[in-house]
C-alpha cells in the first residue's frame, strides 16, 4: 500500500512536471518517468508481462524517440492554457468515481488479480486477436511509408 502511494505520488508529480516545464526536453523526460511509474504499478499487482510491454514498447521505443525529438526542438515559445478546462474534466472524474463506487461489487473490488500467461493464447479468439493486431500494425506502417513517399514526390 505504501509502495502504491509512493508510485501514485511520483506519477502525479511527474505529470505535473510535464505540464509546468517550459522546456520540451524536460517535459519528455518527465513523461518517460510517468510512463515507467504507470508500468511499475502493474508489478505491484503481479502483472509483470504488461510492465514489460509498456516499458519495452512504449518507453523503450516511442519514449526514446520523443526524448530525441524534444532534445532537437528545445527552444520553443511559452505556453498558454485556460484553467477553465479543468472543470469538465473534474465533473467527468466525479461522475465516473460515483458510478465506480456504486457498482463496486461488479468491478471486483476486494479481490485479487488472478492472471496467468499460460492460458492466454490457447483459445482461437486470441489467435484471431493476434492476427488482427499484426494486420493493424502492418497497416499503420504502410500508412507511414505512404506519407513519406508522398512527401518525397
Amino acid at each position, binding site marked *: 500500500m505504501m509502495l502504491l502511494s509512493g508510485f501514485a505520488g511520483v*506519477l502525479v508529480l511527474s505529470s505535473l512536471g510535464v505540464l509546468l516545464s517550459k522546456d520540451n526536453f524536460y517535459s519528455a523526460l518527465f513523461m518517460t518517468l510517468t510512463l515507467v511509474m504507470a508500468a511499475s504499478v502493474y508489478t505491484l*499487482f503481479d502483472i509483470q508481462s504488461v510492465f514489460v510491454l509498456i516499458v519495452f514498447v512504449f518507453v523503450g521505443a*516511442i519514449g526514446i524517440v520523443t526524448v530525441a525529438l524534444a532534445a532537437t526542438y528545445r527552444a520553443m515559445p511559452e505556453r498558454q492554457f485556460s484553467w477553465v478546462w479543468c472543470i469538465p474534466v473534474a465533473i467527468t472524474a466525479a461522475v465516473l468515481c460515483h458510478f465506480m463506487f456504486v457498482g463496486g461489487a461488479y468491478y471486483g473490488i476486494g479481490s485479487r488479480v488472478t492472471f496467468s500467461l499460460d492460458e492466454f493464447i490457447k483459445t482461437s479468439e486470441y489467435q484471431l486477436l493476434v492476427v488482427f*493486431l499484426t494486420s493493424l500494425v502492418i497497416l499503420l506502417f504502410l500508412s507511414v511509408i505512404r506519407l513519406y513517399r508522398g512527401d518525397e514526390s
Partner: protein
Amino acid sequence: MLELNAMTVSMIYLSSFAILLAGFLTALSSKDLIRLLIALELMFGAVFMSLIPAFVVAANPAFGTSIITIFTSAGELLVLIAAIVIQDRRNKNVLIEQITIGGDRV
C-alpha cells in the same frame, strides 16, 4: 501482491485522472507538435493506469485489451512522429499554427 480494495482502486483512478488532466492541459497549451506528442503519450499512460482494475474482473480479456492498446497507441504515435518529420521538412518548423485547419493535409 496487493489486493484490489476500495482504497487501491480509488488511488489508481485518482492518479489516472490526474495524469489525464495534465495531458489534456498540456495538449491544450501546446504550440508545437513535440509537446502535443508528449501530451498524447501522457494520456495513453492514463489509459494504461485505468486498465489495472479490469484484470480482477477478467484477466485474459484485460491482457488482450492492454496488448491492443499498447501496440495501437505506439503505432499512432509513430505516425505522428512521421508527420512531425514531414512537417519539419516542408515548413522548417513544428509549430501548430503552420498546420492547415479543417483539412487532412499537413
